[in-house]
Every structure is written in structure tokens, then in C-alpha cells.
């Protein structure tokens, strides 16, 4: 059986590999199915938690469930029953988690302590209580305490059919809840004040989110372990955030990432020796997170770097055109300007400027010959628009925002690239209405404002 973690499976035979990868064994199927639905449910519940800005609550809950399990065990043994009743122990865990949520909320309302302090305090004190109870169990019932260890590290390999079906049941419940209440959740997450004013039971919805998280935490604990279930609740939603700005899409991407990393992780740990499934699942999820962070099509690093690069290039391009135009304007002739002269007009590096100019030449906006640099007719038109936006904005700042003329150039530099024609028209209208005597208001730097399409 491939699920043992001993060294004897190090040399895997092909048919054994085949059996695992194509889910030939009943056992493999059960484990993969169980962890897959766990991942899906965790992705769904975790998204809600992340957007509620309480991602680390799952960590606190996972640790805080320990005393619940331990005390329930003592209670069962004390009343003469077997201590190994999974449902009862999970029930104990749920009770402890609910108590932890109540403690956090109560302390949040009655003290000045911040949420992060409360989370770590409840986490560690509850866990301490759990360790105390476990200590008592170990001393008094040494033969059975090993079973409780399963809750701490989890044992995916030992997942049996009934456990898997429990997971499927819980996951189904969570999927149904998430599907039924998506609109309410969306409202709660993005504007809880509005939700409350519309008459939604915000507090109860919040409790429902917490309950979903508690269920995933408690059920996931025995599959992947106490600490790693936190990973399932946190990592997939954060990863999904890079792919979509839409709540519903993000939630289901998170579910997919969670499910896939669970199933994949389980399979990998089955194939490789000495690989605890829980840890491999988390590392798979971490890998998916890393890929998402870099490649994500909405907030990924590559995308943002590309956009920033484009904006920088566009800005440089605009600045170069405007600088050429203004130099020509000052010369008030159709002449050429010198590269060095252009470079001195702004603090450009020679390399940067040359690259920008070559791009402009390729676009047919600038003519760059041995005589010097000058604008082509289309370039002149383009540059005129830019100078116009720039100066209009400067004037606007001086007239309406009371900015000193010596300070407006920088602000206008930043804004001129994003002014659309409509806005320019509006500015024009506003400034001319303000001073109707001058049809074309003067630039604060004593150069004239060029008119679009006018004679050059």
C-alpha cells in the first residue's frame, strides 16, 4: 500500500505509480476525494474570512479548538464511554471555537486592545489550556492519548471512508451556504454598514461566516493537522485575489486552488516517500500562491510591473515631446534643436533621452538628423495637445486651487498624461468663462497656449 511512509516504498514500481495517479485504489479515491472537497470548502470559507479582514482568525480557531477536544475526551472517559468518538470530539472542538470567537468579540468591545493582540492572546491561552488537559490525559490514560495527537498533525493517509464522508457532508453544507447567501455575504463584506441599513441581519451573517470557518477548521484538522488547516483557509483565497477583482469569481477560484492543491498534494505524498500529506498539500498551495502572485491577471506582480513600465514610458515620451515643443517655441523659429540643449531642459540621463527619442522617431513624431531634432507635422500636433493640457491644468491649479505659479509645474507634469479630451474641453470652458477678455489665457510661465488645429 503506497500510503505508508516507510522507506520500503522508496523504489516505486510503475504499476503502483499508475494505480495512484489514476485513482485505481479505493483507498486512494477516498483520500483524494476527501481532501479535494476539504480544499474546496476551505477556499470558499477562507475567501469570506479574508475579505472580512480576519484571515488569521482561522489560526486562532485552529489552536483554540484543542481544549475542546481534550475536555470532551475527559468527559467521555469520565462518564464511562470510549474516548474515541470522532463526532463527539469534533463537537467539543466546535464548542471551544465558538467560545474563542465570543471571547474575542467580548474583549474587543470592552478593551482598548487591538484585534491582533486579542487573536494571539486567545490563541495561546486556549492552546495552553489544551496542553494542560492533554498533560492530564497522558498521565491518566497513556494508552489512548496517541489518538489525540492525530488532531495536531493530522493523518491524511489514515483518512477512512467515514471521515471522508464527513468531510464531503460538511463541504456540501458550506458550498450550499456560500451559493445561497452569496449576495448577502457580498454586501456584508464590502459595506456592512449599508447591509445593516438595508435590514440584513449583519451580526447573524457574520456568525454564519464564523461557523463555516469553524466547521472547516475542525474537520480539516484531523485530515491535515491543526496548523496546516490554517494554510488551507488563508493561502487559496489570497492567491485567488491576484486573479480576479470580482467577489464571486474570486471565491470560486479560491475553491479551485484549494481543491487542486489538496488533491495534488495528496497524490504527490503518495508517490514520494517520507512526505507527510498535510505538509505537501500546504507546499502545493504555497507554490500555486507564488505563481498567482507573479502571474495573476488582475493584481499579479508581472502585470503591475508591465503597467508601471508602460506608464513610465508614456510619461517620458510625453515629456520629451513637450520639451521639444517648448524649446522650439522659445526659439520662435522653424529651426532644429540640439540634443544637449534638450537634455539640459530636464534632468534626463542621456541614455534615457536617446531611447525615448528613438521611439518617437519610429512613431514618426520626431525627425532626428545630423542638424538636430525637430517635430514632424503629426508630432507637432501631438505635442501641441500635450502642452495645451499641461498649461490648462497649471492655470486651473493657479486659478481654482490657489497654488503658487512656481509650484504648479510638478503637479501638472503628473496629471497631463491622464487628462482626456473631454476634461481638457471642460478646463478650457471653465478658464475662459473665468476670464472672458482673454480668449487664450497666458501660461503662468509666460509662454502662449497653443490652439488645437491652429496655424503653427
Amino acid at each position: 500500500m503506497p500510503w505508508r511512509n516507510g522507506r520500503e516504498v522508496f523504489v516505486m514500481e510503475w504499476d503502483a505509480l499508475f494505480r495512484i495517479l489514476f485513482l485505481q485504489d479505493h483507498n486512494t479515491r477516498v483520500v483524494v476525494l476527501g481532501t479535494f472537497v476539504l480544499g474546496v470548502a476551505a477556499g470558499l470559507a477562507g475567501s469570506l474570512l479574508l475579505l472580512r479582514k480576519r484571515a488569521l482568525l482561522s489560526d486562532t480557531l485552529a489552536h483554540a479548538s484543542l481544549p475542546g477536544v481534550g475536555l470532551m475526551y475527559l468527559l467521555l472517559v469520565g462518564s464511562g464511554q470510549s474516548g474515541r468518538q470522532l463526532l463527539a470530539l469534533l463537537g467539543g472542538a466546535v464548542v471551544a471555537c465558538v467560545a474563542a470567537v465570543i471571547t474575542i468579540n467580548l474583549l474587543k468591545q470592552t478593551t482598548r486592545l487591538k484585534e491582533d493582540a486579542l487573536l494571539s492572546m486567545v490563541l495561546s491561552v486556549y492552546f495552553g489550556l489544551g496542553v494542560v488537559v492533554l498533560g492530564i490525559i497522558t498521565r491518566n490514560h497513556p494508552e489512548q492519548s496517541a489518538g489525540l495527537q492525530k488532531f495536531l498533525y493530522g493523518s491524511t493517509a489514515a483518512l477512512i471512508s467515514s471521515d471522508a464522508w464527513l468531510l464531503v457532508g460538511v463541504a456540501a453544507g458550506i458550498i450550499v451556504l456560500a451559493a445561497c447567501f452569496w449576495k448577502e455575504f457580498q454586501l456584508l463584506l464590502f459595506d456592512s454598514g449599508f447591509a445593516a441599513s438595508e435590514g440584513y441581519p449583519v451580526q447573524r451573517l457574520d456568525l454564519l461566516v464564523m461557523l463555516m470557518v469553524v466547521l472547516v477548521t475542525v474537520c480539516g484538522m484531523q485530515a491535515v493537522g491543526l496548523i496546516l488547516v490554517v494554510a488551507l483557509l488563508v493561502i487559496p483565497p489570497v492567491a485567488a485575489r491576484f486573479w480576479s477583482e470580482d467577489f464571486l469569481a474570486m471565491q470560486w477560484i479560491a475553491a479551485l486552488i484549494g481543491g487542486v492543491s489538496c488533491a495534488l498534494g495528496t497524490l504527490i505524498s503518495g508517490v514520494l516517500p517520507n512526505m507527510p500529506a498535510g505538509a505537501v498539500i500546504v507546499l502545493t498551495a504555497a507554490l500555486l500562491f507564488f505563481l498567482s502572485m507573479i502571474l495573476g491577471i488582475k493584481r499579479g506582480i508581472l502585470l503591475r510591473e508591465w503597467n508601471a513600465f508602460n506608464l513610465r514610458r508614456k510619461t517620458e515620451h510625453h515629456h520629451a515631446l513637450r520639451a521639444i515643443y517648448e524649446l522650439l517655441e522659445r526659439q520662435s523659429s522653424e529651426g532644429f534643436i540640439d540634443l544637449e540643449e534638450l537634455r539640459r531642459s530636464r534632468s534626463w540621463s542621456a541614455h534615457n533621452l536617446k531611447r525615448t527619442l528613438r521611439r518617437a522617431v519610429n512613431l514618426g513624431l520626431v525627425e532626428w538628423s545630423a542638424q538636430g531634432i525637430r517635430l514632424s507635422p503629426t508630432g507637432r500636433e501631438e505635442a501641441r495637445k500635450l502642452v495645451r493640457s499641461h498649461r490648462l491644468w497649471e492655470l486651473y491649479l493657479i486659478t481654482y486651487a490657489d497654488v503658487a505659479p512656481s509650484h504648479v509645474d510638478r503637479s501638472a507634469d503628473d496629471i497631463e498624461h491622464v487628462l482626456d479630451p473631454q476634461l481638457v474641453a471642460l478646463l478650457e470652458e471653465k478658464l475662459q468663462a473665468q476670464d472672458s477678455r482673454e480668449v487664450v489665457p497666458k501660461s503662468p510661465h509666460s509662454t502662449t497656449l497653443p490652439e488645437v488645429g491652429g496655424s503653427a
Partner: protein
Amino acid sequence: MQFPVWTSLDSWIVLSALLVALNCALLGNFLLLRKQSMMGDAISHAVLPGLAAAFLLTGSRGSLVMFVGALVLGVATAFLVQWITKAGQVEEGASMGVVFTSLFALGLILIRQAASQVDLDPSCVLYGAVELAPFDVVKVAGWSLPNAVLVNGAMLLVNGIFVLLLWKELKLSSFDSALAKSLGMRVGMLHYGFMALVAATTVASFQVVGSILVIAMLIVPAATAFLLTRRLWVMVLLSLLVAAGASIGGHWSALMVPELLGYEGDTSTAGMIAVFSGLLFLCAWLFSPQQGVVALGLHRLREWERVAKDDVLAALWRLQEKHHGPVALSLLHPILSVEPVIHRFAFLLLRIRGRVKLTRGSSGESMVELIGKGFAEAQKVVRSHRLWEHYLVEEIGVRVDRVHQSAERLEHVTSQEMRAEMARELGNPEKDPHLKTIPGEETV
């Protein structure tokens, strides 16, 4: 019942735990104030692969190698969290969650790889074993000292020096990091230096309290002290006291409590220290002089009582105004049954303090009357009420039939100066909008 005997072993255990607790509490204050409490949690989990890798690389369980490995991972965690928060625009809590769970998983795998070679038990890292601390001894200048005492004593020295030397910087950057930055402080460097110390302290504590309970030692004493004072140096001192109390009380309870509950043997000292510090926090939460739940509750109760007293006095004053003299107690019933307990209690207090007097009327029914200071106090409330009504109508333009509710609230918070100011502004009016006489300012 037979209680265990306190031995020299217990003294060593308590000393180790005490040093760890002091160490953690000292740094915990700043973690708490910098809103990075969960960073302790993140670091204490994330150092696991550092420990495992150090072991795998060198093959030794020597403290120093492990220590360096864990330290590297601790600082790396702080960097990674910052990087994911900034570059990925992820909320800090979430990026901590991503980093420490991933690193912890990596650590588990490394440990599993090493497990076949030597016994490196993850539960030892999770729980710690302070009970075994006295057996792991080193000889120093002819003395045999437990390793844990030595390491944590040294750590305490380092932390103490760090905090004392950088007190001003830590204080400023904890409360207002933007200001600290604008004053030219190297806030980023301070952050990573501090995180390195947290990592080192966490690692030094592992053997004693384990990676999760160390969080309790970091945060709970500081949080307890936070509830007791608003001065930083008092907070630090108090947190040290709480830490000391928790470690001594924790070990004692670990020995005693199982027996008291009818179980055999003792239980985990580390766990008990966490629980005990939780209990100390609970005490502070309940009984803190300024911020405690009990103090706040009492304060609220006194406010209610004051408002109820004003209401009763004013009602009685108005009744006497109408009837020109003592009135039947039954007429006061409507006001007494607004909040039956509070208002009746307030009425009782008024009688005890000699503000109102109960007498027998001619036909044998109970009569009630304002006496002494009671009359003056009542008149102040009524004057405030009617002045406010007038003011709200005249100056703010509230409709006459709407002003009563607002005046009813404002009358309880109006001082003599405010009344004088209002009267002056309104030109010393005689009547309120309901055409009732505004009484004068009676001197007691």
C-alpha cells in the same frame, strides 16, 4: 490528599520559566504596541525549517547551530511578510498566514526526512519540556547550570540592553512611526533588528515553553499591563511582574491542579503558565481601576443613578410648583416607575441624604416634600431644562412640541456657567416656550 513536595528541581524549573517569561514580556510590550502581536505567532511557527535545516546540514543538535538556523528563518519571515504585503498588496495578517504556514509545512517535511536518523520530535518544539530543563546542564566556572537558564539569562541581558539603549526610538516608532521616520530614525532597520530579537527570544524559549505557548508569554503579560496603565514604562514594569507571577503560579498550579481535580500526577508547566497568565489578564480585565469592566460598570451605574436622581428631583419640584407645597407620594409614581429599580434606588438615596422628606398628610396618606439642599438642586435641574427649551426654540429653531426630549437629555449635563451664559444670551427670559416660569439661580 497528598500534595507533591517542592524540590530543588522545581526551583530550577521555575527559574528557567521565569527567565523565559521576563524575556518574552519585555519584547511583547512593543509587539503589542506596534500591532504586530501575530508576528510572534508567525515567527515561532516559521523557524521550524530553520531548526530542521540546521540539523540536517550539520548533523548536530548543538544549541548554537539550531539557534543560528532559527534566527535566519525568523528574520527571513519578517522580510517575506513585508515583501508579500508590499509587492502583492496583501493585507498583513493574510501574508503572515501564507508565510508561516508554508514555512511550517516545509519544516515538517524536513523533520520527517531527518526523523529516520535521529529523534527530532515536532511535539517537543510545539509544547516544550520545561520539566526536563534541569537535566540539561552545562558546567560554568565550576557550577552546573541548566542550559535553559544560561541561554535565557544571556538573552534577557541582550534584550534588556536593547530596550534600554533604544528606549526612545522604540517608544516613538511604536506610537507614531511616521513621525519617527520624519525625524530621521531608521525605522525599517529598527523593525528588522527588533524582529531578529523576537526570533532569537522565541528560539531560546522553545526548549522551555514550546513554539505556541511562547506567544502567550509574549502577548498576555503586555496586554494585562496595557489594561492597567497608560504610561509605557509602568506598562513594561507591570508586564514583567505579571510574567513573573504567571511563571511561578503556573508551575505551582501544574503540580497542584490535577490533584485538586481528582486526577493523578502533574501536568504541563508551560501550558499552565499560559493559562495562569490568562487568569491574571482576566483579573486585570475585571478589576483594572480605570479600564476594568467592574469599574466601568460602576461608573455607568453612578451615571444612571445621577440622571434618575435629577429626574426625581425635577419631577417633585414641578409637582410642588403646581400644588404649592408637599404632594402625595402617589403623584410621584409615574416618574419612579420609569426604570423601577434605578429610580426607586435614587429616591431612597435622596431620602437618606436628606433631600426629600416623607410626612403623613391630613387624611393619612404619604406626602413628599423637597427639603434643604434638595430644593436648590431640583430648581437647578428645572432651570436648566427650561432654559434649554427656550434656547433650542429661539436660537436653533426647534419646534416647540419637539424640544422637551432634547432638553430632558441636556439638563443633566448643564453647569452653572452654561446656564448663566444661556440666560445672558437669551436676555434673562422669564418664561419658557411652554409659558412656564423659568426659576432663578438658587444659591445653596
